[in-house]
């Protein structure tokens, strides 16, 4: 292996890494400098927080963020509950039609709710759930991916543990809660991080189904905020972007290792 190739490989690695992080770096640059410097790069440009102030003033970020938090929590809690039950049944119970049920569930991996916005919107309108947190969450409350992941994990838990619990007088849901859930904790964590980052970033369905600040999450709020209808002020938009991605980004930076491992784990299964 030639030395030259090594150097070349190294340089390209760092270069690509830089390119990959560039959009974020730019957002920081534009957000902390006055508008005039949004397109001019000058090391000595004055720093300012004004963009954050005017972004904060122009859009109800607090309600957006609250909505995002409520929606992702609602979805996550429901997913964990629903997927645990179904995952357990599929992993541990013998019953006729199990394969068909499993196949039906797996269909959602292919036919994601995004594809069915037209019909799901009609359903939601029929239920008068348009523009509610529940409405944004509904199509995602059950997750084929979560069921699959938990089914795989539950399958690896030795039968003896379950039998022992039964001998101790535990039954049904108690076994799931006391034996299976704790043992599958890493899977739950992995799945939760994947789910949260997916729904924190989800856009198309929330766009369709939300109307107002009462339920609109950050992504949709940002799309309206940055809508080029009357021209764009880069600096303010960048500041808004940083506000919007801030919480998740900070979480990610702190728990970086955990995050990446979780995605890995979810992927291996």
């Amino acid at each position, binding site marked *: 292996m030639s030395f030259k190739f090594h150097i070349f490989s190294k340089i390209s690695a760092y270069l690509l890494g830089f390119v990959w992080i560039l959009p974020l770096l730019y957002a920081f640059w534009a957000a902390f400098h006055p508008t005039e410097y949004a*397109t001019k790069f000058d090391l000595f440009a004055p720093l300012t927080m004004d963009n954050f102030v005017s972004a904060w003033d122009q859009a*109800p970020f607090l309600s957006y963020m609250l909505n995002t938090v409520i929606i992702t929590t609602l979805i996550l809690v429901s997913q964990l509950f629903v997927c645990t039950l179904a995952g357990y049944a599929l992993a541990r119970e013998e019953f006729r039609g199990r394969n068909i049920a499993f196949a039906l569930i797996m269909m959602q991996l292919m036919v994601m709710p995004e594809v069915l916005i037209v019909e799901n919107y009609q359903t939601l*309108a029929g239920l008068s759930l348009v523009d509610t947190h529940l409405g944004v969450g509904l199509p995602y409350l059950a997750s084929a991916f979560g069921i699959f992941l938990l089914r795989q994990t539950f399958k690896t838990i030795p039968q003896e543990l379950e039998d022992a619990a039964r001998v101790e007088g535990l039954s049904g849901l108690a076994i799931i809660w006391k034996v299976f859930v704790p043992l599958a904790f890493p899977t739950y964590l992995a799945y939760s991080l994947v789910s949260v980052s997916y729904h924190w970033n989800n856009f198309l369905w929330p766009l369709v189904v939300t109307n107002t600040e009462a339920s609109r999450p950050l992504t949709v709020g940002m799309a309206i905020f940055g809508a080029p209808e009357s021209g764009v002020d880069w600096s303010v938009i960048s500041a808004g972007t940083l506000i919007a991605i801030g919480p998740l980004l900070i979480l990610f930076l702190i728990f970086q290792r955990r995050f990446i491992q979780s995605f890995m784990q979810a992927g291996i299964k």
Partner: protein
Amino acid sequence: MRNLNKQLLTCAFASLVGVSGLVHAASDLTMYYPVAVGGALTKVVDGMVDKFEAQNPDINVTAIYAGNYNDARVKALAALKSGEPAQLSVMFSIDVHALRNMDAIVAFDDVISTDAERQWLDSFYPALMENGKADGKTWGVPFQRSTIVMYYNKDAFKAAGLDPEQPPTTWEEFINVGQKLVKKDAAGNVERWGAMIPSTGYPYWMFGALTKQNGEVLMNQAGTETYFDNPGVISALEYWQDLGSKHTIMPEGVIEWGTLRQNFLEQKTAIMWHSTGNLTTVKNKANFDFGVAMLPGNKDLGSPTGGGNFYLFKQSSAEEKQDALKLVKFMTSPEQAAHWSKATGYMGVSADAYETDTLRDYVKAFPPALVARDQLMHATAELSTHEAGKVRKYLDDAIQAALTGQESAAEALAGAQAQAKRALKRYK
């Protein structure tokens, strides 16, 4: 017997409430509002609504800000369909046909009763009423309205040896002036373009200006026919095309609506055509001397009007309609319209609005605010047909196809005309 009891009870209750001093139960209005121009606007609307509520303590208004025009319409209609309350909305002035097809709105003529109200309905600039009328009735009352104006960089004019007080007024002058304004660096790369006309977002709207200037219209008033392939329409598109490809005063290809203002503020173009809705922002942000002028003309001067009208929804009680009417009358009253215009850059919708102290003082200090009004004399209706979304897209696509050199103007417009004809067949 049971029924009687119930009635008695209701009576007793009603009299109790009456005695307690309330005139009648407070009524709730829900208004959908398209915020297309950034969050700051919601505060202006909120302020006006608060003022209205202070004057009418028995009416409680909820404003729902639903995104752009498209979103607002979708959301309002969805609400109506699912039986949620909605009495009025500001929606795209050109949605009138679609809204009528859905039987969603009532004509203002059927809600007003007094002579004063009839007078009010006649008080707006006629050009702003064009898009709101159909079948001899008025369905939309102008509020958030704009036209296209020409913003130009006076410093650039001076630097190019042009008179900054003499912006181009004809198509020919526009080309000549534009060519002088193009600034290139030593290597021959363009540092500043002469002009930019945006061709994303609302290309059909910009094109409406060019066709009006060429003495053409794009559709009939019933919204059942389009004239995209008329020779005058084709030559208008050819003119637009040539600005980039032949006269090179404009970059070739498509120009982004959203980033155009930034281009102008960064002096990457000396002239831009844009909505009057940008006036306040440009005024606050430009660090050079700028002017605002009417668009240049060819056979005619002109620009389409644009923006949103008030509509009243059919699906509401008679009292609610009266309350909604009251709100519309308040919002469009000269004092409020003037306040609105000053705060946003949108037009004052009636001559009376410009007679108020608010606007008179404002335009004295800042004359560009008058250009949009003066141009109204030459204004025309915005493209509005049945199946509006599709027809608009056909024209938008044709314009972009021509500007990017994929097709000739004649080919592209003939294609759009054929598609529009097919879409409108069912409405003849």
